[in-house]
């Protein structure tokens, strides 16, 4: 049977995929002295000391809270502004619609490094440096265009007769949009939220530049701690493992919609 050979190769690939993550997990369960003295395939003397350090030290665990706050803010802002705009792009023809749509997409393709210095100056002028909202707004640069793009794909899949019938029935546009239309594309809203979460969660260049201490993301704390106290591989690995957890949880919740969402949407 051919499928058997296929399955074995696939299993082999998944093994390779998980190996580096496993290796970090392995490191996170050992002390630094242990890591540097012997190379073992699994922790012979597993310890949670690295995790305990992270959960009891505010300078560590606050990084997770900061990251989650600005990711949540960014996802909310992106969806709120992108929903009406995506509706406009999918339903109406208006002056400059194609140009605006293209201009939005160029921002998704802009190198983050280009915006680094100006962002720092802009947010310094506004007194927003080291706040969560600064990072959330900066991430809108790439997440809002992406959200418009995906949502427009989902909305164009809904026949326009539905809108027309609702308007004849006396629905106003806002009421129709909130009570009828958004429930119809809830899968699309879910997929969009997933991608906004993902790109805001993994981005670090802006998040690191725009924060000092109060809103510092966990990724930046990891690198800063390395330079301050020398290399503690075990601690760094434990912090890395914990950054995977929120993403893994989100994937688990959307796993059944993911394939469908990818096909319908445009990402």
């Amino acid at each position, binding site marked *: 049977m051919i499928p058997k050979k296929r399955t074995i190769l696939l299993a082999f690939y998944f093994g390779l995929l998980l*190996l580096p993550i496993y290796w970090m997990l392995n490191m996170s369960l050992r002390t630094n002295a242990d890591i540097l003295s012997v190379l073992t395939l699994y922790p012979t003397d597993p310890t949670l000391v690295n995790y305990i350090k992270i959960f009891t030290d505010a300078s560590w665990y606050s990084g997770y809270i900061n990251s989650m706050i600005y990711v949540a803010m960014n996802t909310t802002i992106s969806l709120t502004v992108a929903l009406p705009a995506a509706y406009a792009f999918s339903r109406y023809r208006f002056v400059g619609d194609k140009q605006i749509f293209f201009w939005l997409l160029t921002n998704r*393709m802009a*190198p983050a490094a280009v915006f680094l210095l100006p962002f720092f100056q802009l947010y310094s002028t506004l007194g927003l440096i080291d706040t969560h909202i600064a990072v959330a707004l900066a991430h809108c*640069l790439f997440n809002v*265009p992406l959200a418009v793009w995906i949502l427009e794909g989902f909305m164009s899949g809904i026949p326009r007769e539905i809108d027309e019938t609702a308007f004849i029935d006396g629905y106003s546009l806002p009421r129709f949009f909130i009570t009828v239309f958004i429930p119809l594309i809830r899968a699309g809203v879910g997929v969009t939220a997933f991608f906004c979460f993902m790109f805001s969660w993994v981005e670090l260049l802006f998040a690191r530049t725009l924060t000092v201490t109060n809103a510092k993301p966990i990724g930046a704390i990891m690198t800063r701690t390395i330079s301050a106290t020398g290399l503690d591989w075990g601690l760094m690995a434990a912090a890395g493992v914990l950054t995977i957890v929120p993403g893994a949880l989100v994937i688990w919740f959307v796993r059944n919609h993911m394939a469908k969402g990818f096909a319908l949407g445009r990402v």
Partner: protein
Amino acid sequence: MEKWDNNKAWFLVLPVFAIVAFSAVIPLMTVVNYSVQDIFGPGQRVFVGAEWFKATLADRRLHEALWRQFLFSGLVLLIEMPLGVMIALAMPKRGWGVSFSLVTLALPLLIPWNVIGTIWLIFTRPDIGLFGSIINSMGIAFDHTASPLDAWITLMLMEVWHWTPLVALLAYAGLRAIPEVYYQAAKIDGASAWATFRYIQLPKMRGVLTIALLLRFMDSFLIYAEPFVLTGGGPGNSTTFLSIYLVKLAVGQFDLGPAAAFSIIYFLIVLALCFVFYQVLQNVGRGEKA
């Protein structure tokens, strides 16, 4: 689909317009402003015209970074696209294996980019890494901090590990969207597995594969955090890609003028490429509907 003509739709786009203008147009104006001035400190600046642009275009290190960037993105696409499609073809179509495969594939995509670098740093170091120590115990000296070739191999491995799942997920979604009747027809015609792939699956996946190609090209062209953590652009300048060089120039040396001119050139390159891609994308969409 025929659209309604209505310029009031602008009001619906206004919030997006405002928020993106705030975070894109104002910063871009600042960059343009920097690119034509020499700044000594607060309030001390001299208008220099196109001087920074001339200097930047003649910068040999920039040329090297640009070619390195094209080589990197080209290699990434050559490896990731076929591999992603093969994985998608091998994935189960029903049962618990589907959920398992999807979750496993999506895992690398949701790890912060600097942590990706950290994972591979730990994994490939010759002293504490599994990969590094296995290669070295086979008698091959492997150290990505010393040899440019090893640094490139490590970066490519990391990039393929990180992003092939995205291609696979998109290709899988495209495959799942093909109606069952196509396969039945192929079976009746006695089509081989290769013919089914070449004449049914591949054409039907064209849309998602175009998107995968665009996303992979863009993101590999803008890569920053992973090589920054893993190699820091070294050894030497062997893995200094465009973004890394730009940040070095702007934040490291604080050469605002040249960095701004560089930013604008970088942005224009991406813009030109993405305009071409956008046209291609539109045509692919039209081809599907016809």
